[in-house]
């Protein structure tokens, strides 16, 4: 620890506070943290107090302004847990309901989807530029949205085939949904499929936005990519993986 002579007065005060509270062992950075906190807190309070005093058309900031500033800040930042009688009260209410029965054989037991974190948390923007129709290798769907860009989703998400696997293992289908954009009803998928042999993607892009929306554009490009050679898909897979890591 730095010798008291070279330590500034504020830090000495902090050291004394720690000593008074009975704390004998602490890392040296604790003093710095305390100083930083003190500075930030005091300046916040004084700034607030200045605002209050100008509002009250006073020439100087006085103790009442400071008191008011402290009171307002206490409710915002230094909240304390609820008082005991309140806790006992809500506990009494909550504990009266009997424990719910457990439905058998429902797969993974998770709350309703909107309380889970398994839904996709991004939406893809519509494709702006033309996609080149070369070699079926579609790198262009730079559907530039935030962190996660091209993540071709196979519309197989909603299909039952995946689900059977899921039940065997016990993983919910919705888990995998985290990586994918959208579920489209299989009817749509099939219609898309039928529309596209290996034609350039541009046509599909033009057709579909009217149908479902921007999300589907990605799907359609996907469909084309799936029809292309497996090499490109595997290459594309790799590319996505890199994107994955970038996104993380």
């Amino acid at each position, binding site marked *: 620890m730095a010798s008291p002579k070279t330590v500034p007065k504020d830090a000495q005060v902090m050291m004394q506070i720690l000593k008074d509270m009975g704390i004998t062992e602490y890392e040296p950075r604790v003093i710095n943290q305390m100083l930083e906190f003190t500075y930030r807190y005091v300046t916040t309070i004084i700034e607030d107090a200045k605002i209050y005093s100008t509002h009250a058309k006073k020439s100087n900031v006085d103790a009442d302004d400071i008191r008011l500033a402290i009171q307002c800040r206490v409710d915002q930042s230094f909240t304390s847990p609820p008082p*005991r009688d*309140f806790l006992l009260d809500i506990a009494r209410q*909550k*504990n009266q309901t009997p*424990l719910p029965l457990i439905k058998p054989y429902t797969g993974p037991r998770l709350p309703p989807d909107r309380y889970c974190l398994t839904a996709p948390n991004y939406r893809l923007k519509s494709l702006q530029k033309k996609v080149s129709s070369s070699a079926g290798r579609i790198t262009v769907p730079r559907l530039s949205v935030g962190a996660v860009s091209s993540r071709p989703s196979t519309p*197989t998400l909603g299909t039952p085939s995946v689900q059977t696997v899921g039940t065997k293992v016990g993983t919910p289908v919705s888990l995998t949904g985290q990586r994918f954009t959208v579920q489209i009803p299989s009817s749509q998928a099939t219609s898309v499929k039928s529309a596209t042999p290996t034609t350039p993607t541009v046509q599909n892009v033009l057709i579909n936005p009217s149908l479902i929306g921007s999300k589907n554009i990605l799907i359609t490009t996907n469909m084309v990519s799936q029809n292309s050679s497996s090499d490109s898909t595997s290459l594309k897979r790799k590319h996505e993986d890199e994107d994955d890591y970038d996104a993380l």
Partner: protein
Amino acid sequence: MAAVQDGPMELDAEKEAKPEILSDGTSNLSGNTASGTLSSSPLTAAPAGGAPKMEDQQTLIAVLQFLKRNKLSESVEILRREAGLGEHQEGSQATDGSGGGKGDGDGGDANSLLSRVSITSAAAPQSMPVKKDQPDVSVVLSAYSQQGDPPLYQVYYSGLKNFIESVLDCHRAELSQLFYPLFVHMYLELVYNNHETEAKAFFDKFSGDQECYYQDDLHILCGLTKKEHLKGNEVLLDFRTSRFVLHISRDSYQLLKRHLQERHNNQIWNIIQEHLYIDIFDGMPRSKSQIDSMSGSLAGEAKREVNKAKVFYGLLKEPEIEVPLDDEDDEAENEEGKPKKKKTKKDSLGSKSKKQDPNAPQQNRIPLPELKDSDKLDKIMYMKESTKRIRLGPENLPSICFYTFLNAFQGLTAVDFTDDSSLLAGGFADSTVRVWSVTPKKLRKVKSAGELNVIEKESDDVLERIMDEKTASESKILHGHSGPVYGVSFSPDRNYLLSSSEDGTVRLWSLQTFTCLVGYKGHNYPVWDTHFSPFGYYFVSGGHDRVARLWATDHYQPLRIFAGHLADVTCTRFHPNSNYVATGSTDRTVRLWDVLNANCVRILTGHKGPIHSLAFSPNGKFLASGSTDGRVLLWDIGHGLMIGELKGHTDTIYALKFSRDGEILASGSMDNTVRLWDSMKAFDEVETDDFTATTGHIHLPDNSQELLLGMYHSKSTPVTHLHFTRRNLLLAAGAYNSQ
């Protein structure tokens, strides 16, 4: 508990009834300070009409006397008419009945407390000592104010001190229990009423006399010198409103009562009545060591009737599972016929008797998830492993395998192992959770949906095919929390991992995709610990908001709230039969809660510091707890008694685990050691007779040295977690601390 719970309800009823009476009363009193005081005081009015209870009767009489004393005759008439009181009833005074006034004082939040205090101190000057003939008026009206001059507090306290030092030895130890709660309450009253200098003087004079195990509390009190400081401190507010419980023998109590009632200033007596609960027992007064072993908590000891509820501590019956004979081990040397082998395997773990264990809960007492096929396979593995289990004992100590986390820089805050010891999870201060595979098998996650689509679904090894080999690694990092992760817990089926963090949420992670599934929000304050139920589906979490919550994975809100602790809940554990939850707290008590209705069935006091580790014995009968004071205490759950004290560690004990058959208790602490204790012997030596069963006073033998089987030092790695594998190998985990 009941006292505090009923408090708020009473308070509300009285508050509502108040305005009626007062509106009549005040119309006749104009410009009278007393009336102003009365009308604004939120508490001390009598309920209107009806049949007032005994305490309310007393309050009414007290108010009448007050009005009379201030010569407010018209209001007296009106009040008497309204309340239906006759002339004769004013004469009745009961010194002990004034407890009713105190009942109103309990409960209520900080604001009402403060307003009450400021008003009653403005009430009629009470500087003179209370006269014997009118004790109830002032007592009722001054729920929290002092009744004497601040300088007189020192006189009162030293008077009591002198008295206690002059009594017989056998009573002195018991009456010395009074010092600490009286000291704290008197100090807090002085602070509340803004007598800062007197409070400081009082503190300086008498704080040195207190027991050594209260020193931490005294440090905190030392820093509280103003009323505002108390406002945000929920722990101390709870301390003020809850009653500190003392066990005193009848003889000692009579002595004390006689002494205090002889004197004219009943102030200490009033404090005792308001803030203390004296549980009187008939019998020999306790010795100092007995008292010391049981005291130390923030709320005194536990009332005897609290620990009398029946606890079903037995284990649930194991389901019968057929062990397939075709994959028997080749190493088995047993040459007996196959049917015999099969029978022994089935019965080795299940209960031998077909009858229901009277101490075990019903199978359907709480709803439990049914066994899936994968669970049945797990059980079969478990049974196989348990046949290879090493029998531990004083002659046969386990080997210890220590997993040291390097480069954690004091950031490792939580560790957990799966039951079959295949996975290890660490929670860190940088808000990440990392999962490692302890076996050579790497961690794999499920493939993405695109890839899943192309695999052959009907093949036999589909469960291996869905796993992504390309990203297999020894460890995986889980991001999601926004604060240090203080608790981690694996689910018994190894599919899920829970983590609780300082950001107030508990997160459920899938161990198949290594992503976060759910965030359970409820505590809005750091969650210090979480634990999955031994059967899965339920989990419990405890945090800074002083409650523990029971959740189910498929409900986004808690199912049960276990409220009652006075300070943060630092450790939560399920009982092996999943019907009870044990919580350890910073208020130095361990509480056992019933999952069915969230009743607190046991309060166990005796620790002198916050409790950081809990462990149930495998047979469900005993509980071990470790705290910052370096002691491990052993409790008999059925009786609610302390049956053992293991001294030896010099620093906080963060890890406690019983071996698989309960013969050895391993404890790991911040002093870089793992100690092994002979729990079999400790539990055998319990002697319970009628006296101990009724009063809970037990004399503990000081046999820690005999029970210590081994002590193992690590170089400079505090032990954060302990785990016995299914074959009774002890695994320990901790982060290397280079300082």
